[in-house]
């Protein structure tokens, strides 16, 4: 009834090709195992750091380091070439952005355009602290008004969760 293991059922569905494209992200994020040895440890470290910084242009949210795609391999090779040519990290970054737009970066640039993104957490933290302190000040003023409430059962050393 059910074909046993060993019988390769390689028949594809009619019209399944279209479905395959539409299905759960089927591009396997197979790793890009690239045993590369740059001439100096310093270059090697820079290379490894750089390939983590950039997005693989064709993949769904993978770094150059992790992607098996050919394009990613070529961009990695380009980075190696530029490193060997003595280019700085910033120059390599600019080169790639000028070709693939900021989309290729995983770290949004520090620019006026992105200011809101980088400042958001800081602003929220400042706002939150101000709000918290105002609330606490208001509430602290109320302590002592309701001394009729037993303080005894409010300590952590009693079951008070």
């Amino acid at each position, binding site marked *: 009834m*059910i*074909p046993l*293991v060993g019988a*390769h*059922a390689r*028949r*594809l*569905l009619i019209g*399944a090709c279209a479905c395959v494209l*539409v*299905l*759960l*992200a*089927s*591009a*396997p*994020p*197979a*790793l890009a*195992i*690239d045993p*590369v040895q740059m001439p100096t440890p310093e270059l090697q470290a820079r290379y490894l750091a750089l390939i983590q910084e950039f*997005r693989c242009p064709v993949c*769904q*949210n993978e*770094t150059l380091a*992790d992607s098996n795609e050919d394009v990613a391999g070529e961009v990695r090779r380009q980075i190696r070439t530029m490193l060997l040519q003595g280019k700085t990290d910033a120059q390599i970054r600019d080169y790639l952005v000028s070709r693939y*737009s*900021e989309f290729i*970066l*995983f*770290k*949004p640039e520090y620019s006026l*355009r992105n200011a809101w*993104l*980088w400042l*958001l*957490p800081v602003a*929220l*933290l400042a706002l*939150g*602290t101000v709000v*918290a302190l105002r*609330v*606490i000040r208001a*509430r*602290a003023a*109320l*302590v*002592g008004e*309701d001394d009729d409430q037993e*303080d005894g*059962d*409010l*300590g*952590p*050393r009693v*079951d*008070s*969760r």
Partner: protein
Amino acid sequence: MVPELGHFALILAMLLALLQAFFGIAGPALGRDRWVAATLSAVAGQFVMVSTAVGCLILSFVNFDFSVRYVAENSNSALPLFYRIAALWGAHEGSLLLWIMLLACWTLAVAIGTTRLPQRFAARVLGVLGFLSFGFLLFTLVTSNPFLRLEPPAADGIDLNPLLQDPGLATHPPVLYTGYVGLAVAFAFACAAMLEGRTDPAWARWTRPWATAAWTFLTCGITLGARWSYYTLGWGGYWAWDPVENASFMPWLVATALIHSLAVTDKRGLFKSWTLLLAIVGFSMSLVGTFLVRSGVIVSVHSFAADPSRGTAILIFLTIAIGAALGLYAWRAPSLRSNGGFELAARESFLLFNNILLVIAAATVFGGTIAPLIADTLGQGALSVGAPYFKPTFLLPILPLLALLSIGIHANWKRGRLGDSRGALLTTLALACALALAVVLGAYSGRQLLSYVGVALGIWIILSSLVDPIDRWRRKLTLSRAVLGMTLAHIGVAVVVIAISLVESFTVERDIALAPGQSARVGSYDFRLLGVRPVEGPNYSAERGAVVVSRNGRTITTLFPEKREYWVRQQVGTAAGIKNEYGTDLFVALGDDLGAGRWSMRAQVRPLIALLWLGPAVMALGGFCALSDRRYRLARAGAQERAGVGPTERPA
């Protein structure tokens, strides 16, 4: 026949959900107690219908019914039984059905668990849940029906995505979704409270166990996902700040804030509007996460099929649901008054900062995740946000939070009286710093400040959490399950923090190329390739390597990484060889055949990563412990609960 039955059951379920929503909301509002009682019947009916539908789909999978399109797209005649069943939630349509199933289960649980609550309130809760069920069922039937047929039936299926053919598939989605959907319960309680115009904090006490349960499942679900990707994807990463991962993390952050805020509202009647808002926002994050993952608006390795029409439908639904809830909030929250006071160093104060810092963290992650959308709306072109953004911005609110945690545990309610604990706090802090120094410098000879800070904070939290329990144990006092649960959960968090600090800073990773017999040094270990030979699996053929790992000449283990090719989809997958040695993972993944028996591979040494799995396990244990506290035993609930006036006497 079976798929038709399932389809029909789903339609009936939708109608019953609609009835449930109607009776649940209109009944109490119009004072019709018959309708209120009918809500329970609708709940039961919906549960039965949804179960039937799920059962029919499972049956279709098990019986290789390739006339059902969903089965044909996600299964194959060579797919093992285990995966045929798990394939139920392998793609969009089925995972929605899983959502609906879990929502029905939670609803049933709520119906059973609230029999001692005022029935009108309980009916409202069930009504809101019914509305949510109706929305999801409608969406499923109209846009994502799993029972659609193929005419003519397919000869064979195109197999489940090989990435999903892993035990992780059986556990991660169901557990995670249980958490997501569990937040709907807290949302429903909040909506019910607002619909009723309740100003007393009893609803907070009623909501607590549900929120804690949802939080526990979310914790487990996220960890299972991280572990699955770590073991399966071949590169040993456990968290990539991918939008879909963030979509599960944000509800967790908000849920954590929620359970703490509920404690304050329960205990002292404060933070009422905060707690309401958190309950709404928590589930909203679940919904928005669902939207992000299924609408194709973001770039992610995990996202489901992109379909703008589905995206629009989900967006409409979530706008209605969240908009209504927030509208209720704007209406009711102003009338919530409370008259408690507390000092700067009081527990309430610490929990206030807890709320705020967690919300900031969630907002930051959210901002980063939808930043590409925002840039698009503003017409600014491409914006790409990844780990280099999330890491520092997430730490900004979280590091202070971790520090405050150690101190806040010792604060009394209302009047902090931290002076009493000053000695204990300073001692534990000193001890933590010293131990952290020993670990970071001694064991790992690293000089990263951040890893030191992380480890120190983690150890401090553990020591600080243990002060009280140890003190009570010495004085032969009992420790309630709730307090024990809290302690365990905090310790669990600390363990995770320590694990991440160590793994992020001291992982050694190298791509190497080896011929049989050759070895390479990675960290303090030697990896030697014995050879690679072909093997066959149930629905794949693979190349399996044997790699011997040794340290200082002593052999530790042999790893067997595989590079698989799945026949039907002709897709390549990797199965890494991993062995844990005293908490540290030795990891090898096969790369490419370089010819002449030489293979490229990636070798990693990940120190103490076992802690990363242990921590959440302890957290979850804490959660379950707190849930099993005496006060939640149904048998103890008295008539006072039914009347629902004011907080009842606290159990000693």
